């Protein structure tokens, strides 16, 4: 009994070792495991002890690197196409992936239909405020289904969506007022964290799961962008072709294809990220390595331009908004880069670059804060200024401590995981801030 158990665990270890090679598929491993077991039972029948038989069988199987290389030669495609959305019947039981596909398609169509219903019944401003409520519950629903959450968690998940729906529609927003715009911008961000709660399957305290959610968000953005690009090209070609035929299809594209495509893409992108989870690290490090230096350069050029153009007090209001957006993008890039880094590697050049990025972002942030405070001193508080000021402060705290931690890491005084932990611990602050902007800021400023 004991030797059986030991053999099973040894075979399990061998299997794990083989499966780590991308070129060898799970079905190939099954095939070789069958071989290994036959060999072991023959050798045992010939008088070898089980553990000896295992060792001999593994030895005869040969060097896994060599076998993997042979497989790679035969299936070079496997090194590329690791994304298997619909495993064929021979690769395992095909029932679950098919069902998942139907669930995903059902949710995508549901999101699209609810957006379409919103477009048909609501005015432009009401729609803009509520659009995330038409799509994100379906995304949260997908993860709730995928993670098989408990009924209690499912009920908890409903709360933020219901609350947002009530607040966004009960508040007597002044028409075209700035609080309405602020609430409309922050509602999707706040609700994204509700999606996150579903994504982590309720384990919101776990740092690892939070980091997974950051990874997911980054990959989701990449996939959504790719889908949008592909969709845009397809739409352009379609319109062009119909134009050449003398038919105008723009109304159809605008009324049906765009809302359906956009809402569906949100769900489908999430599904794609889920399906290709084990290939996640393929694109993230590449993107962050390309864009970290470029973004740093952009920030430094902006800073120089700022300083040389003179007074920071009478800077354009639009410039402040743009700079805030840039800072948000920088933070996203930082989070994405941290999520793609192996925390056990020693510091390298890229970490230094990251420190430069964080420090230049800090400089921009401080400059923004200074400009904003002088404007507030001169013109008083407005909803926009409070929102921008608060966001800059939230970013300032994050960036300052990040810089401190990365510096400590570069000097070898602490591991990279402290930087990771800081970001995962800080994550809820963004959600809380966005929620405040939706629920508290409008009444404080009388919905102007």
């Amino acid at each position, binding site marked *: 009994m004991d030797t059986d158990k030991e053999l099973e665990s040894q075979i399990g270890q061998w299997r794990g070792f083989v499966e780590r090679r991308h070129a060898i598929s799970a*079905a*190939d491993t099954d095939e070789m495991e069958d071989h290994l077991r036959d*060999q072991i039972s023959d050798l045992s029948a010939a008088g070898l002890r089980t553990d000896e038989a295992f060792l001999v069988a593994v030895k005869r199987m040969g060097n896994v690197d060599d076998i993997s290389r*042979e497989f790679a030669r035969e299936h070079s495609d496997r090194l590329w196409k690791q994304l298997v959305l619909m495993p064929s019947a021979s690769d395992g039981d095909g029932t679950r992936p098919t069902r998942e596909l139907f669930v995903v398609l059902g949710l995508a169509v549901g999101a699209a239909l609810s957006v379409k219903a919103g477009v048909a019944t609501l005015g432009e401003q009401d729609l803009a405020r509520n659009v995330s409520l038409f799509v994100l519950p379906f995304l949260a629903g997908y993860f709730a289904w995928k993670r098989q959450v408990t009924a209690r968690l499912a009920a908890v998940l409903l709360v933020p969506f219901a609350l947002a729906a009530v607040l966004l529609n009960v508040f007597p927003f002044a028409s075209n007022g700035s609080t309405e715009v602020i609430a409309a911008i922050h509602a999707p961000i706040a609700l994204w964290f509700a999606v996150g709660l579903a994504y982590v399957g309720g384990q919101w305290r776990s740092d690892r799961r939070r980091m997974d959610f950051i990874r997911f968000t980054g990959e989701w953005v990449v996939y959504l962008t790719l889908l949008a690009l592909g969709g845009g090209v397809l739409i352009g070609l379609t319109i062009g072709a119909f134009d050449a035929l003398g038919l105008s299809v723009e109304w159809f594209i605008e009324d049906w294809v765009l809302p359906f495509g956009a809402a569906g893409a949100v769900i489908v992108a999430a599904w794609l990220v889920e399906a290709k989870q084990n290939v996640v690290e393929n694109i993230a490090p590449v993107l962050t390595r390309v864009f970290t230096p470029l973004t740093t350069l952009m920030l430094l050029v902006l800073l120089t331009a700022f300083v040389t153009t003179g007074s920071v007090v009478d800077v354009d209001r639009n410039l402040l908004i743009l700079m805030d957006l840039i800072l948000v993008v920088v933070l996203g890039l930082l989070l994405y880069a941290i999520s793609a880094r192996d925390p056990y590697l020693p510091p390298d050049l890229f970490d230094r670059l990251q420190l430069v990025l964080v420090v230049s972002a800090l400089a921009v942030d401080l400059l923004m804060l200074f400009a904003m405070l002088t404007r507030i001193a001169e013109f008083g508080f407005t909803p926009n200024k409070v929102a921008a000021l608060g966001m800059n402060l939230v970013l300032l705290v994050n960036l300052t401590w990040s810089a401190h931690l990365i510096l400590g890491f570069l000097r070898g005084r602490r591991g990279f995981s402290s930087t990771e932990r800081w970001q995962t611990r800080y994550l809820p602050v963004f959600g809380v801030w966005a929620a405040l902007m939706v629920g508290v800021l409008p009444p404080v400023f009388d919905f102007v």
Partner: protein
Amino acid sequence: MHIEKDLVAASATPLVLGILAEGESYGYAILKRVNDLSGGRIQWTDGMLYPLLHRLERLEYVSASWGASDSGRRRKHYTITAAGREMLAERRAQWDVVADALSQVWRSVQLPPASAEGWS
């Protein structure tokens, strides 16, 4: 006896196709058969058989299907196809030519039996 790598590689395809021409089989059984046929003197690295089988499958010399072993494990069975039989006949003709030429060489050159070991 050690047999040179290139010779093993060259003979692997006709051996596997030939064994499958005797009837449907699977990886471990094919290796055992090779062992029997050579009296244990042809030693393959077991794992290398599978990439080879997959290549033959891609070239459509064999077709594969998943079945179950006696103990209920999943097992991949291979069957030779018509194209595989053609290829086997062709390989056989090639090997006949080589073997024929070689046997004439062996007859004309009298090698001391011991030095045959030193060849590989």
